[in-house]
């Protein structure tokens, strides 16, 4: 039989056998990103005979990708990565099903896409996608095989596996925008994502085959220069997981690029704010703080009670927040955004600037 011959060397491993191969055949794995990590992971997963593989990538192949994204050659330059990867992988193993999704992973498509697969592999290259992938895995209850690289170092872990920790239990919030550079900014040797992506593929196979100890509750750090692997234990933090589940109804409307600071919080100038009609103004200062800006007819909701009041607002409505000087109101906007509100901004300089502006007008 062709199948037995193709997988012979892994089937003769007593821990795998034909029953293990059958598990691989029925497994469905979705790989996010067919880049430095996704290419090696996909290559081994497809070769091992995972029955259904999904590939999500909206990007196109460029010459500068070729030193590490080893599924592509000169002939694929300019092609969509998901489609080019599918094309190469169908030759590597024509006996399995490969679904290419040449689109961006978003809050709109993530839940339905993830629901069709058993395991999600994160091979993305930015924090907004990584948090989106994590949260969608928490919501859909799918294990997440995580890998990430920086220069000569890499990280691997398995999240959301059998009640283990999620990515947010390790890193609850995205770092400040621009504080962690990407491969395109600082460079990378092709072998590093090759190693990390292969480690991810190995974890996927272990999960499916129920072999060995899955890298759950542990963060593996690999330093390619000192050739050192270190493992750190990570505990599940239930409130981090509950926070994600609490906003699952708003998930589709959330903006992860905004959360990760890729898009800035919208700031309105005080002179402009005073002319806006049809927006709901919210003063998030403590009730004793002066001056009051009565002309805007604001709702008074001190910032530490805002969370409780969120469900009294419509998340489609235009909301403009202000505080005394613009610091707390920015925080308030972030709280709104985290809960799926789309049209929320704050006033630059807060009540002080508004007051000055009003006085100017009166003069």
């Amino acid at each position: 039989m062709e199948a037995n011959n193709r997988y012979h060397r892994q089937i003769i491993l007593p821990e795998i056998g034909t029953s293990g191969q059958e598990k691989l055949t029925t497994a469905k794995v979705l790989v996010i990103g067919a880049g430095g990590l996704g290419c090696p992971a996909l290559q081994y997963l497809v070769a091992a005979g995972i029955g259904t593989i999904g590939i999500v990538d909206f990007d196109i192949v460029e010459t500068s990708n070729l030193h590490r994204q080893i599924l592509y050659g000169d002939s694929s330059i300019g092609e969509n990565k998901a489609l080019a990867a599918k094309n190469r992988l169908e030759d590597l193993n024509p006996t399995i099903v490969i679904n290419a999704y040449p689109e961006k992973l978003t809050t709109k498509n993530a839940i339905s896409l993830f629901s069709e697969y058993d395991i999600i592999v994160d091979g993305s290259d930015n924090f907004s996608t990584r948090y989106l992938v994590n949260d969608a895995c928490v919501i859909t209850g799918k294990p997440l095989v995580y890998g990430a690289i920086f220069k000569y170092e890499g990280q691997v872990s398995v999240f959301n596996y059998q009640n283990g920790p999620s990515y947010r239990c390790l890193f609850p919030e995205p770092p400040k925008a621009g504080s962690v550079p990407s491969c395109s900014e600082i460079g990378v040797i092709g072998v590093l994502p090759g190693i990390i992506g292969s480690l991810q593929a190995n974890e996927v196979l272990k999960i499916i085959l129920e072999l060995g100890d899955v890298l759950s509750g542990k963060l593996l750090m690999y330093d390619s220069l000192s050739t050192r692997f270190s493992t750190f234990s990570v505990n599940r933090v239930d409130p981090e997981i509950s926070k994600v589940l609490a906003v699952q109804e708003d998930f589709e409307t959330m903006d992860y690029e905004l959360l990760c600071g890729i898009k800035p919080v919208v700031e309105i100038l005080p002179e402009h704010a005073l002319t806006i009609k049809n927006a709901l103004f919210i003063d998030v200062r403590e009730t004793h703080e002066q001056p009051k800006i009565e002309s805007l007819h604001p709702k008074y909701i001190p910032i530490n009670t805002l969370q409780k009041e969120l469900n009294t607002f419509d998340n489609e409505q235009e909301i403009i927040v202000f505080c005394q000087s613009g610091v707390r109101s920015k925080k308030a906007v972030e709280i709104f955004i985290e809960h799926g509100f789309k049209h929320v901004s704050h006033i630059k300089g807060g009540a002080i600037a508004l007051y000055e502006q009003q006085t100017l007008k009166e003069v």
Partner: protein
Amino acid sequence: MQLTIKYFGMLAEATSITEEQLQTEACSVSDLLKKLKNQYPKLNDKDFKVAINQELVNNNYRIDNEVEVALLPPFAGG
């Protein structure tokens, strides 16, 4: 007591070292971080987690014997 501090990823760049020994009295993780951020101001704008003897801890954790401290930043690249 003597601590071994390990810096990973961009934290090694911020401090220009990957590992060092540090003499200190018993202290909390946040006290230690204050000290390190004072010594390496570039750590101030970095996000990272702290592990003591290969186990992630929060900033209230009290360091009262000779341990290995690892500073672990998030990576985004792929």
